[in-house]
């Protein structure tokens, strides 16, 4: 089973248990990004998560946005990079940039 199959399986299990779930996906990368386009992070109500969208640098911020998306149902397109205003909090140490799309699983 590849990473994506495992993540979708986990999403199904969470949904079957009645939990709200959001999916974050790397949709664009520039420079040296740790995870390729298509990499996924699934987040369940309560904050449990599987998968990754970086080497661990931005997961905290993405999980927060995912929890908000579960609540309000609105998709989000997030930019992360060294030039980001939040660089001190969630910048990518590698100097790359990534765009992450966060959506509630319906």
């Amino acid at each position, binding site marked *: 089973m*590849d990473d994506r199959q495992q993540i979708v399986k986990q999403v199904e299990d969470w949904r079957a248990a009645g939990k709200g779930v959001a999916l974050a996906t790397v*949709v*664009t990368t520039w420079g040296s990004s740790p995870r390729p386009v298509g990499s996924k992070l699934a987040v369940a109500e309560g904050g449990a998560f599987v998968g990754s969208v970086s080497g661990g640098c931005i997961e905290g911020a993405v999980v927060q946005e995912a929890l908000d998306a579960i609540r309000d149902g609105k998709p989000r397109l997030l930019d992360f990079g060294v030039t980001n205003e939040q660089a001190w909090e969630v910048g990518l140490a590698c100097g790359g940039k990534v765009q992450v799309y966060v959506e509630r699983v319906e």
Partner: protein
Amino acid sequence: MKLDFARAALAAAAAGRSAAIATNLRSGLQTLVEGSDRTGDLALDQACLAAIEAAVRDDRSTTIDTAEGPVFIEVFNPSLRCLVVGAVHIAQPLAQMAALAGYAVTIIDPRSAFASEARFPGVSLSTEWPDDAFAVLRPDRRTAIVTLTHDPKIDDPALTAALRSDAFYIGALGSKKTHAARCRRLAEAGFGERDLARIHGPVGLDIGALSPAEIAVSILAQITATLRADRVKARAAA
């Protein structure tokens, strides 16, 4: 994302077909594309459909710009496969490691004492002769083939079938001497130098591997290096 779309796309890939999900990153509208079938609320014009076709062909998910905003195309292609001929000791860690790396693994060995469920719990096994097994499994350009028996009776028909396929990687266990003798036999059977150059033999990267697990690491590393050769090349050129 609609869970139904993800399920349908993964099912298509598991059945050997390709699918894609297109998502407008501004509106969140989404459409599942499978062959000529389209399901969903995101309208796709000719340019979008052409981009989806190209993404599927290159096996590369990507984001494209459209008048209605960026559209993410996520590709679902059939799994990479690893066919291992020879249910020997090295095949045990190799099957586990290749599965972790995302390969659908099948072990082929006509000696049923070797290819047993007890020795390979949960792994797909075939006790057919390799040429018969390959006729059913039909290795393609997303398949890696490794022969581990170093018994010409079993390895040679496997390599013959492998060389007639589009497999992206072919590796054969055996010393330099064993490999030279093997290449002579295959040459006599009609294969040319370019065919024989496709076989990685002795198999694996030279990392001084000694134990079966270490040898499995060296083999999986070589398969990875072959699969990702264009990334290595792009970096060398930069």
